[in-house]
């Protein structure tokens, strides 16, 4: 029966992903004071998380394809193909972060009649975007390396692993960036 089979196979993974969501959500509650001091900060959160998810799962699945094509493997991991993929992901993160910052600034101005400091908002997004890009690229390469060594198919592992860790890492990066740039530490 379909229901029984699906509950057995997908419920544990769904609960696991839900727990990951609870950790990410708890990080959000740490930011309550920052939301009060940095107007417009809350607007960028879904966009940064979505950007990160999109760019890193695409990165992971391209490395998976590269493995199947025989371009990279455990002995020959750090090569020009991998470098091009890393540069592509970082430049994408940088460009999309700028777009997110600008859109967030403009929509706060138009819809909410509050005047956030555009430089603060845009630099928080860029820092959070780049920081999470570096961490997740590093994490992906480690995961891919371990998967290669064991001879597993990376396509089955990188997607779920990145989806679960990605949100948590990204939320922490937003928290730290907001604290550094807008939290009055400097």
């Amino acid at each position, binding site marked *: 029966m379909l229901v029984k089979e699906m509950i057995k196979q997908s419920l544990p993974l769904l609960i696991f992903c*839900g727990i990951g969501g609870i950790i990410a*959500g708890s990080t*959000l*509650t740490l930011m309550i004071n920052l939301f009060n001091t940095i107007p417009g900060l809350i607007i960028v959160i879904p966009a940064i*998380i979505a950007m990160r998810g*999109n760019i890193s*799962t695409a990165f992971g699945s391209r490395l998976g394809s590269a493995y199947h094509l025989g371009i990279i493997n455990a002995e020959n991991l750090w090569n020009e193909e991998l470098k*091009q993929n890393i540069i592509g992901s970082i430049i994408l993160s940088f460009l999309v972060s700028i*777009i997110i910052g600008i859109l967030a600034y403009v929509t706060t101005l138009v819809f909410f009649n509050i005047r956030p400091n555009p430089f603060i908002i845009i630099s928080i997004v860029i820092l959070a975007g780049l920081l999470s890009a570096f961490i997740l690229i590093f994490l992906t390469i480690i995961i891919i390396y371990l998967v290669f060594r064991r001879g597993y198919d990376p396509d089955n592992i990188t997607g779920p692993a990145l989806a679960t860790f990605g949100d948590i890492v990204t939320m922490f990066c937003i928290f730290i960036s907001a604290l550094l740039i807008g939290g009055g530490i400097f």
Partner: protein
Amino acid sequence: MIYDWKKIVRFSMPLLTICIIIEIFAGNILQNSEDQLLLFPIFLISIPVINGVGGNIGSVLGARLASGLHVGNINLDIKDKKMHENLITSLFIGFITYLILAIIIYLISTFSSLIVINPMKFITIILCTGVLLVFAVSIFSILTAFWSFKKGLDPDDMVAPVVTTVGDTLGILFLFMFIGVVGI
């Protein structure tokens, strides 16, 4: 060499930009209800959970439909029985997952002394939001899978980005809708 960073950037930018515009809209809904969220942080914790689970169930359904369409045991027909069976199963799984997670979130919040909110109301809000979200996301998943299959595109490439982006926005929208309906 088959990968070139310029190509990666050029091919990814259009879809990413569309996703970002929709997500900024989701962010605007959050900003609009910021006071409520900061007053009841239990909903702040719930947002990534609601969206994550909804996106996952939708993507799983999409992947199953894509495989079914490729193999041929699911037909390009809105009345397809196998498709209905998959939809109902997704709703059922969604109900159980959200129920379990709502209880966990409530317990964690109580232990960290975050809230004063009626547990029945909280669980009702999360369950209603979750089940409606799974339904909406499944419809998007089915439409995207059917549409891309018909156009000769691979549904496996299309369903996940569409479903997660639409799911994020609808999840936040439904949450505030049910907070309004049930009351806190």
